[in-house]
């Protein structure tokens, strides 16, 4: 049960009453404009009250909202897209969609994690949880992009890598590690956007980038709040507290220097005005790609190395002294 979906029910009820009144008003002699205006104001207030400021835990559920735009909602709005399939060995993983695309007049390699937009698609897409075959597709496409000079654009949206038996049997660890290994070496600009939930290593496999964007209410975390609570508090009901502690919101991560840009969402979340959000995100991606394209491959690689090299130098005075013992 998603608390954001629950909360929307009250709002939808008000919206329905407004619609009813409007319909009645058109057919009846009695003027109900005042009542309508009052309800509209109430709707606005309710919306601000419910969604004006979301807690981290609420953002997790916003990120998981069943109507939230998925990777394919973005991909469908680029100028052209030609999907490429498969790991060339074993399987085509539907939880990853990738291929050549035209964005802002430029050819790029698009790669996105795709959860389902309904139950049937969720089963097909394994709820966006990628298997080793999917990560090997990602690695392959990133490698091709690097060879051909095409910028890599990723959309991150996963609870985490698939935790099933066959994924372990097919070396999930190696598959993710090899994605990371490919991304740190890709000789082209990489722009990653967290559009929903960015869960742990399974998300980072598409996340090493020169420019990282997050949607305002998306989350990006080292572990799920539920898993973290179960382990550190030995109490899954502490998930809300864990969500706060984990600092998994876009604002936190921008402050930390882990992400570079936040794309704002409309009041109530991206799914309330999906086309606006999709356009905004694609525009931010386009701008980032354009800016990064001015750099040579060597400069890109050096800057990318330095960026990740710096993370974790906080707090400690990092002296690179090497002491012989004794």
């Amino acid at each position, binding site marked *: 049960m998603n608390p954001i979906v629950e909360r929307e029910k009250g709002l939808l009820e008000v919206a329905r009453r407004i619609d009813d009144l409007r319909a009645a008003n058109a057919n009846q002699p009695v003027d109900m404009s005042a009542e309508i205006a009052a309800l509209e104001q109430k709707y606005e207030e309710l919306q601000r009250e419910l969604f004006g400021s979301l807690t981290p835990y609420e953002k997790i559920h916003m990120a998981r909202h069943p109507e939230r735009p998925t990777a394919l909602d973005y991909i469908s709005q680029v100028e052209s897209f030609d999907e490429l399939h498969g790991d060339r060995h074993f399987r085509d993983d539907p939880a990853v969609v990738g291929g050549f695309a035209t964005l802002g007049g430029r050819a790029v390699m698009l790669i996105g994690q795709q959860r389902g937009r309904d139950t049937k698609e969720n089963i097909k897409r394994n709820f966006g949880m990628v298997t080793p075959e999917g990560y090997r597709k990602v690695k392959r496409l990133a490698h091709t992009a690097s060879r051909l000079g095409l910028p890599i654009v990723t959309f991150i949206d996963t609870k985490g*890598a698939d*935790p*099933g*038996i066959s*994924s*372990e*049997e*097919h*070396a*999930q*660890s*190696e598959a*993710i*590690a*090899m994605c*990371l*290994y490919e991304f*740190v*070496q890709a000789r082209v600009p990489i722009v990653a956007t967290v559009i929903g939930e960015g869960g*742990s*290593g399974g998300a*980072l*496999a598409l*996340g*090493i980038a020169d420019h990282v964007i997050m949607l305002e209410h998306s989350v*990006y*975390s*080292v*572990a799920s709040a539920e*898993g*973290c609570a179960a*382990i*550190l*508090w030995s109490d899954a009901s*502490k998930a809300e507290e864990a969500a706060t*502690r*984990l*600092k*998994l919101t876009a604002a936190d*991560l921008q402050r*930390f220097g*882990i992400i570079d840009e936040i794309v704002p969402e409309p009041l109530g979340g991206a799914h309330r005005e999906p086309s606006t959000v999709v356009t905004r995100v694609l525009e931010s991606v386009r701008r980032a790609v354009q800016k990064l394209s001015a750099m040579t491959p060597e400069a890109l690689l050096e800057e*990318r*190395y330095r960026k*990740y*090299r710096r*993370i*974790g130098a*906080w*707090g*400690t005075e*990092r*002296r*690179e*002294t*090497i*002491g*012989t*013992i*004794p």
Partner: protein
Amino acid sequence: MPMPEWLRIRRGKNAEQRDAALWSKCPKCGEVLYRRDLATNLFVCTKCAHHFRMSAYDRISMLIDGDFTEIGSDVATGDPLGWVDKKTYPVKIAADREKAGINEGVVCGIGAIDGCDVALGVMDFHFRGGTMGTVVGERITMLLEEARKRGIPCVLFTASGGARMEEGMFALMQMAKTTAAVARFMQDGNFFVTVLTDPTTGGVSASFAFESDVIIAEPKAMIGFAGRRVIEQTIRQKLPDQFQTAEFLLEKGHIDMVVERHELKATLTRLLRYAADGKRARA
């Protein structure tokens, strides 16, 4: 196992207390073993050959010839999220330092294994379950950078429950940071070996552990991305005992070899010599 002079200094009070305890019980077969015998036998049960988890410094002294020049030992743990669960993060860190006798989850440095120069990093499960936070990531990165500068091979022993949650996304990003360092190191034609010890999972498993030229595992070590419990909860059934063991992974083609601890130093030495010969040929 002879203990080098420097080791006593590094191991701390608690380790000495542990050594002083007369016996340990084998978690596998239940045999009660004299601590001294166990250490002499490289912490392998003399009855059932169970490989005990080893502390980082014990491991280093088992492998390194003489001096060991530590790298990054003064890179200290921070608390970027101001973390609190049942305890605060700094309290947990302080307790583990006392308990494990080391100041973070990995010990890195330069030394020689049977005459072969090597950059050696050893993770220690006794410190925060071998989780990778910023210090672990930073030290391993420093080690790889130093190895690259010197043009010597790097051997990393892994033991990890995954990324360290108390450091949030800073911990996750160490997968990226260490991988970037591994890639630069390997691009130059340097030799990289990982030795996966019990357990190796999560963010460590899904980064440098599986990025090396040769992946060795200790017998019966538990190795995987997802934890056993997570998988059992997902599929709602119990997993076979064999699942995710080193032997299972060997059969599935994920790792190069399973090597008993008594053979480990000799095996590593041979591998380092092959690589050294290749390097000479390229020079």
